[in-house]
């Protein structure tokens, strides 16, 4: 693995750097002076097969162009808005990030910042340290956090972890995200301005991309209002920063807790003197425990790449959700892993699959997958396990693959969803009433129909026949059956 040349873009973590140096061939970008960078990259280009970036410094278009041997970008972050994903896709460069290990830290900080902003904890600390607390009776009124209406932008891993914490403070939860999620206790808003108008604390927890740039606009800040609080643990670019600054300064916005800024490490000057804002320097995941876990993920992803094993946390592939992780489900998982698809699954009991993400319900699985595969046995509990709710959660960009049984899926619902464009596409090997296939599907281009051929190969049918014959012989000869089900 010493032959894997890894370019580290920034001294982001001592343990990471030390291990990269030990396990791979480490090249430090900052070893070259900024003005000699192009030459530095050129002279190392042949060796550099991997790049390790983070939230602030990552593989942008110019860097990727300068590295013709680049195979993988392993980001020391969960947000990869600074990686040119389109270019990576074109060049077949694999991308990994560090999801899950930092979810708790970021959520802890988000709620901690909300309390700190509302109750003015850093301001109290400054007040006391400055020797200003002169009399027991002088007091600063601040407003209660518990019971406030909390709105979350983005209900992914981090957003959900924030919601779970806020609920313990009896906060009501509302959210906005690209599609509605299966949480009936959380109120969904299709419009961010309406979300802001109906909450007390707005927490930014979505990923940064073209659609979410400046999602917290002047209008949203205005809707949040002079009693409202903005907490940003996403990216600086989620917020129109000049608007935010003037709103806070003029008290048109009540308060803010900010971990991120448009131009780190330079937060806007005007915020420095304000008491209604808490400013922290992008520390969302900056704990010893989490940084080590993130670093280990980066290192393990690079090792997996070097050894041609499945990546642990690929970002590149479509997310595949498998219903039922038995023999067939697992075989599907190992195949899609090789395409860098993250694997999610649902089954009755959670098992220990470190690289596969468990979801406690099919609806949640569908909401977090791009491709949903039915691979469980058919019984009373699994009949119509793919129902309207699941199909809606999969959504207009989602794809359903059924290699189980027709009755696993509510077929009329599936057909109307496909015809109306509420579901993106389907690959179907099985149907409720074979050999009859709903005619409405025949004209659709986003559907692949095959006539129950899942095991329809010479080799497999021969093996299946041998099993049948072997079982019958065993029965006649009073020997143990080969493949008893009951």
């Amino acid at each position, binding site marked *: 693995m010493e032959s894997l040349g890894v370019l580290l873009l920034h001294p982001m973590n001592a343990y990471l750097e030390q291990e990269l140096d030990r396990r791979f061939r480490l090249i430090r970008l900052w070893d070259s002076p900024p003005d000699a960078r192009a030459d530095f990259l050129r002279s190392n280009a042949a060796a550099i097969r991997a790049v390790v970036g983070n939230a602030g410094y990552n593989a942008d278009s110019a860097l990727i162009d300068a590295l013709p041997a680049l195979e993988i970008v392993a980001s020391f972050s969960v947000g990869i808005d600074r990686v040119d994903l389109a270019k990576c896709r074109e060049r077949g460069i694999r991308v990994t990030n560090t999801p899950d290990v930092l979810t708790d830290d970021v959520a*802890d900080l988000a709620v901690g910042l909300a309390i700190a902003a509302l109750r003015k*904890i850093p301001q109290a600390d400054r007040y006391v340290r400055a020797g200003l607390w002169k009399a027991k009776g002088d007091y600063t009124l601040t407003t209660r956090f518990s019971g406030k209406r909390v709105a979350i932008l983005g209900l992914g891993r981090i957003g959900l972890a924030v919601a779970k914490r806020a609920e*313990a403070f009896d906060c009501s939860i509302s959210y906005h995200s690209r599609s509605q999620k299966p949480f009936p206790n959380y109120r969904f808003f299709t419009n961010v301005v309406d979300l802001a108008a109906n909450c007390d604390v707005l927490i930014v927890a979505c990923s940064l991309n073209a659609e979410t740039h400046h999602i917290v606009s002047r209008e949203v800040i205005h809707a949040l209002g002079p009693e409202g609080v903005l907490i940003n643990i996403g990216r600086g670019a989620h917020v129109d920063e000049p608007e935010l600054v003037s709103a806070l300064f003029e008290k048109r916005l009540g308060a803010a807790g900010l971990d991120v800024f448009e131009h780190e490490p330079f937060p806007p000057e005007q915020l420095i003197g304000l008491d209604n804002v808490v400013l922290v*320097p992008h520390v969302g995941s900056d704990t010893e425990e989490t940084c080590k876990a993130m670093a280990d993920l980066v290192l393990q992803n690079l090792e997996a790449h070097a050894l041609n094993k499945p990546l642990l946390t690929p970002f590149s592939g479509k997310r595949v959700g498998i219903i039922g992780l038995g023999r067939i489900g697992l075989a599907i998982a190992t195949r899609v892993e090789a395409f860098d698809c993250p694997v999610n699954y649902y089954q009755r009991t959670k098992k220990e699959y470190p690289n596969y993400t468990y979801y406690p319900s099919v609806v949640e699985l569908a909401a977090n997958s791009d491709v949903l595969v039915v691979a469980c046995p058919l019984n009373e509990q699994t009949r119509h396990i793919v129902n309207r709710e699941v199909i809606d959660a999969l959504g207009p960009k989602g794809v359903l693959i059924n290699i189980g049984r027709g009755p696993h899926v509510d077929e009329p619902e599936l057909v109307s969803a496909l015809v109306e464009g509420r579901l993106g596409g389907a690959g179907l090997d099985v149907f409720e009433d074979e050999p009859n296939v709903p005619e409405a599907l025949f004209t659709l281009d986003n559907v692949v129909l095959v006539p129950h051929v899942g095991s329809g190969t010479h080799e497999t049918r021969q093996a299946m026949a041998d099993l049948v014959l072997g079982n019958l012989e065993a029965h006649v000869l009073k020997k143990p059956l080969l493949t008893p089900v009951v």
Partner: protein
Amino acid sequence: METTPQSPADEKPLVLLSQPLFPEFAAALAGRYRFVLAADADAAAAAVARVLLVPGLAPVTAEHLARLPALELVAGTSVGVDHVDLDNCRSRGLSVTNAGPAFAVDSADYAVGLVVAVLRRVAAADAYVRRGRWAADGDYPLATKVSGKRVGIVGLGNIGSRVARRLAAFGCAVSYHSRSPKPSSPYTFVPALLDLAAGSDVLVLSCALTDETKHMVNRTVMEALGKDGVLINVGRGGLVDEPELVRCLRDGAIGGAGLDVYANEPAVPPELFGMDNVVLSDHRAVITPESIRGVLEVVTANLDAFFSGRPLVSPVQL
């Protein structure tokens, strides 16, 4: 204020005050009761006064109480009533009421805010940013995770139980110490404070200050909490041996502290001012409009109950 002969038409019940009322209280209660500052009360009023309302935390001593022979109720406006001579109240058979659950939510929120602020260095990091050090000196040093920490709560009453619920949602493992176990509580009871400290990463104080609990957090307890342990105090300064706390912090015997209360407010040991692993606050945990409204309701309810012969709403067990 001088007393005037009462005519039946304006017979508002007499309530003596140990201190002037907070403006919010005066506004809400003025029409219901006849308030007289105890220090200004003439002999007639002092002889008949049945209720002493104690706004704030100024001491109410045996001498103060001795001047009021007809006294039956001492009504406090705080949760902690250690500033009232409770032994004297007990021996005279007086009832004492406190703020009941009115402050519990804000106290619990604040305690959790302090836990995150200390462990994640929120106040120190905020100061780092404001001093321009992010640009000049680079990234702030790594802190430690809140999720998954072992939390020990001292006193699982109204405040402690709410702290427990909130920190459990952060993925913390919660245990508690109190005079007796709470069978309905899902958290682990630890009979000895020293054991709780030894088995915790964060120790949260949310119990009353009494003769038994005074200085309960001493050097031994702090050493058991350990060099990575954090102490959070939203109870009373007197629960902690404060000079020992300062020494332990200075020597690194404990890992950090979040303090809203002190032994001798508003005096705060200045050695703490230079420490990044400490968050200091000016006893503001319950200074919110919501808590003030809440305690006003409790005080009003207690006064109403007393004067109509009904059971008190938030009596303190003496």
